[in-house]
């Protein structure tokens, strides 16, 4: 068990591509940290640098209090689960899991004890004699995890371990990974491009974009207090709505003027914060779950406006309404009992207590 520290990590590939542009990150002992971001943002590169599979161009990586920049992977005492599992095809499941221990010259009984223990945690006891080819995707995934668990390493590294599974299995294995972490409590760095996975698994989420960290924080904090437009749009599903707006002063308060003459009052508590933007063009951000029908609203700070959905998608527990506005496509989550039909205008309630304003020039949330 160990903490992991990254200091000013830069990775430049041959040809001058900067995949990672100076990352600072402190990961505490026992913590489960998820790196999330769009494709190509440098998540895998960061993880592989921690593993020692990729050279660090500059900066320092510290595992368990020792700088490991020049330590080869085999001496870092880490375990990694790859996206396509990278199981050894010529070894049985047992041998796959025992391989690392065998190389470290553990006694036979100890190896057997650990492999059987891991097999029990992962429920793969009956597969130990099979070759990887004879396993399903989910079973391979478990074996790959078993191979990591038996080592009892300082750090677990996961690179998109669930992306080769079908949707249902992915949800199941996600829970499984969380359970395993609650049992073994090993420091974990987990890479995914799926924000739902990030939110559900992480103690802290690290949102990356174009080789830099946009924001680090617990899932709830990222959800409620995104710092940048990128984080606001990346976290949450369906994604946050962004609507061009102008801030206007009105009799002691502020209103947002949206396209099509819609005006929404800014809650009194936010007026001081947004005062400086009066008369300016900004982006108004609001999550679909804060844009609902008017049937069940009782809270304060509700602004009501009329709009006609273009597409209506009944999901069962809710209905999604997609509305086209000038310069924006927005989505609202409605109660399934509310009648909604394409092309028919209906009243919508915006929960302005959960609104966000984004400065277009900096991309930062105000």
């Amino acid at each position, binding site marked *: 068990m160990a903490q992991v520290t990254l200091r000013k990590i830069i990775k430049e590939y041959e040809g001058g591509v900067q995949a990672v542009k100076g990352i600072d990150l402190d990961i505490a002992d026992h913590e489960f940290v998820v790196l999330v971001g769009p494709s190509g943002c440098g998540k895998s590169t960061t993880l592989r640098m921690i593993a020692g*599979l990729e050279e660090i161009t500059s900066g320092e990586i510290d595992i368990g209090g020792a700088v490991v920049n020049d330590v080869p992977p085999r001496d870092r005492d880490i375990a990694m689960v790859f996206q396509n599992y*990278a199981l050894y095809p010529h*070894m049985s499941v047992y041998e796959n899991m025992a*391989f690392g221990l065998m*190389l470290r010259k553990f006694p036979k009984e100890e190896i057997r004890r650990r492999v059987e223990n891991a097999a029990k945690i992962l429920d793969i006891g009956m597969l130990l004699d099979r*070759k990887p*080819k004879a396993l399903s995707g989910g079973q391979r995934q478990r074996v790959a995890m078993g191979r990591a668990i038996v080592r009892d390493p300082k750090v677990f590294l996961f690179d998109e371990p669930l992306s080769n599974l079908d949707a249902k299995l992915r949800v199941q294995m996600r829970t499984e990974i969380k359970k395993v972490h609650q049992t073994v409590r090993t420091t974990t760095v987990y890479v995914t491009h799926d924000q739902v996975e990030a939110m559900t698994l992480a103690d802290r989420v690290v949102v990356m974009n174009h080789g830099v960290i946009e924001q680090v924080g617990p899932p709830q904090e990222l959800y409620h207090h995104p710092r940048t437009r990128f984080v606001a749009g990346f976290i949450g599903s369906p994604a946050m709505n962004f609507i061009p707006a102008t801030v206007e002063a009105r009799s002691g308060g502020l209103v947002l003027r949206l396209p099509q003459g819609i005006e929404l009052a800014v809650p009194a508590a936010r007026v001081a914060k947004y005062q400086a933007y009066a008369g300016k063009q900004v982006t108004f951000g609001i999550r679909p779950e804060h844009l609902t029908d008017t049937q069940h609203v009782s809270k304060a700070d509700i602004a009501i406006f009329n709009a006609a959905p273009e597409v209506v998608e009944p999901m069962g527990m809710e209905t999604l309404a997609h509305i086209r506005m000038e310069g924006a496509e927005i989505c609202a989550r409605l109660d399934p009992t509310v009648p909604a039909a394409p092309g028919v205008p209906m009243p919508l309630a915006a929960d302005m207590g959960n609104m966000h304003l984004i400065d277009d020039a900096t991309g930062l949330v105000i």
Partner: protein
Amino acid sequence: MAPDSSAAVAPARPPAARPPSNAMKRFARRRSTIAFLMTLPLISVIAGLVAWPASYAIYLATLNRRMTAFIGLENFDILLDNETFRAVIWQSCFFAITAVLLKALIGFWLAHMLHHLPTKGQRKWRGMLLVPWVIPPALSTLGWWWMFDPSYSSINYLLNAIGGPSIPWLGSPWWARISVIIVNVWYGAPFFMIMYLAALKSVPEQLYEAAAIDGASGWQGLRHITLPMMQNIISITVLFSLIVTFANYDIVRVLTNGGPRDLTQVFASYAFQVGVLSGNIPRGAAVSLFMFPLLAFIAYFVLKGVNQRNKEMA
């Protein structure tokens, strides 16, 4: 039964290899008649160029010298009593096994080096290293013969230049044996190299990364990942090369012509000597058939193992 399995083994199709009989049956059932008709030309070629000569050789080997009477296995009996022939067996095995081992080792070493070169330089080196294999062996052996010449040869000249002794390359039995092996290895190693290079490239990079994280050093990666992953290619290449090397004729014929004192004769060159030069065709056929049962036996088990692993691994 014998000519039948010779037809299957002799063309020595590399990888996909020969499935065992029940797979064969399934194969026959699965493929349509059209497929059979389309392979008919190939089948007739194999029948005409492999099965028929092989059966005919077996038939010949059971005749007397004048080919007038059937004498069963007597030719083999006589051969086994003959001291020269026992030396030929010994020399053939020594030659084939040593040469194949060296070819495999050197081929692997070359392939490994090439594999770790940057892609740009790799093609150039690969091309150059393949040269010995594409020159007709009779020609290149002549070149070696000239280099082995005791008085004017470049090899001895170089040895002398660094203060070494002159070596009677083709004059003394042991040096002659070694010379034959050197030339065969020089000619055959590139084949191993190219096969092993393809095999090395087919091992996924991630397995090495996983092994490195599991704690494997470079050597352990080679031993526990590379070699097991290449095992099928290694066994097929070794088997193929063993068959071809046992049947080698041109190098011995050109380099030493079996000498000195028949001590470098191998099966093929000795069969030529007995059958054609001395005019005892049935006995010559018996010589050339001598290794067939053993090789067929080895081939059966090697290919069975290959098939087994193919089924177990991806």
